[in-house]
């Protein structure tokens, strides 16, 4: 059977990994390629690089990070942040990314999802959604969570799927960096509204939070950053816990 993926996310700023607390207050936590190699050998199921300053600054550093990582790590790699054009998608795929996540640019121009999916296949197009509860409904935000759009998260996820997205990466702005756990209602309502896989993100502070994302949030994969980066838990502890509570995960390789 298909296993739930545990995905450490490395937020990258100018080629360096930083931790994300509500998208501000960044603390340098190391070299991305080295971290990727550690997660590779630790048995992470996939890696995510998020270029958090990409919307405003030079993006070539992330391409280099991806290329160097792909030389050393033979595991699935998702890259996002500041992806604006089909050419950006192509550059990252050629560098070695398996999936490219598109956020702001897809909202501004939904045709980008369609164009990227028809060129490279839906399987490599991830639509990243940053959502927040506003007046009792989940709305999406752009520009790393700084701009409100007024668009419903659920409607946008359905649109993204119809436009050819192969996966949704859903981040709760309210929970990101809080260690209070995923926004399960948000996660479940978006996951149940689409028939493509969904990665839950934002708020993981304990191993139980990871498991809840699947059992109660209906996510296909769970993403976390700081609990792994700062050694609070490692991948094998996360997998052992998931297994214990009945969430099937891939065992750490023994060959």
């Amino acid at each position, binding site marked *: *059977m*298909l*296993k*739930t*993926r545990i995905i450490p996310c490395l937020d990258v700023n100018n080629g360096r990994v930083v931790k994300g607390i509500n998208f501000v207050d960044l603390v340098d936590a190391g070299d991305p390629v080295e971290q990727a190699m550690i997660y*590779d050998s630790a*048995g992470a*199921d*996939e890696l995510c690089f998020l270029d958090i300053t990409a919307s405003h600054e030079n993006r070539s550093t992330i391409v280099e990070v991806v*290329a160097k990582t*792909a*030389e050393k790590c*033979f*595991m*699935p790699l998702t890259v996002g942040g500041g992806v604006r054009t089909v050419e950006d998608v*192509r550059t990252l*795929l*050629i*560098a*070695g990314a*398996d*999936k490219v996540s598109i956020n702001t640019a897809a909202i501004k121009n939904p045709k980008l999802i369609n164009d990227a999916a*028809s*060129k*490279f*296949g*839906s*399987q*490599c197009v991830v639509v990243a959604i940053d959502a927040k509860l506003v007046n009792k409904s989940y709305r999406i935000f752009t520009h790393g969570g700084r701009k409100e759009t007024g668009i419903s998260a659920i409607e946008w996820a359905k649109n993204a799927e119809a436009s050819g997205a*192969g*996966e949704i990466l859903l981040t709760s702005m309210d929970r990101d960096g809080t260690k209070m756990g995923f926004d399960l209602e948000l996660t479940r309502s978006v996951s149940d509204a689409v*028939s*493509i*896989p*969904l990665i839950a993100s934002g708020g993981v502070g304990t191993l139980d939070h990871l498991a809840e994302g699947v059992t109660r949030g209906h996510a*296909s*994969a769970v993403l976390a950053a700081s609990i792994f980066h700062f050694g609070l838990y490692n991948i094998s502890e996360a997998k052992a816990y998931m297994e214990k509570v009945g969430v099937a995960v*891939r*065992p750490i*390789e*023994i*060959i």
Partner: protein
Amino acid sequence: MNVAIIDYGSGNLRSAAKAFEQAVSELGGGTVQLTKDPDGLRNFSHIVLPGVGAFSDCMTRLSATDGLIESLQEQVFIKAKPFLGICVGMQLMADVGREHGETDGFGWIPGEVISISPHNRNIKVPHMGWNDLQIIDSTHPLLRDLPEGAHTYFVHSYHFVTKDERHVLATVNYGKPLTAIVGRDNLIGTQFHPEKSQRTGLRIIKNFLGWRP
């Protein structure tokens, strides 16, 4: 050994090349080259066809290089060099692909490539992530030294239904059994991505490189 990786603009090209370079170096040497030169294919011992995206799009891009498909036919189907197709590269061995219309494949392994189309809404498509192989032919050299229940990384919305079930070496369960590995004679195809399947993937690549069909 000299490994040709067919370069036709497939997104997983570089990852495939890097994984093959790693496998070759672990085996003690050889070359890995990206190529789309039809005449040059005769100089290689192994031929790898990576592929992501849509069946029809991959076929169109392969056809864009004059003589490439004919040269593949000759080197692989007639001269019987070990061939590995990855993901859509595996699917292209079918007679026909039914993604975005109907497109002829190489016709090396009889069958068709159709949508996964699950009946159960909990089964999300693409089939994306790690799934354990149900090995049918454990004697095949490609599957040597693989532990029971080895996991590999899948990402696909279409699957290969062969006409002859003997051409299926392994399946994977996703609502129903889907073809994970096809093979006959000197031909092997994996629906999953060995270049993204960590040590298990490298093991399969090394097995392929050591294979003398």
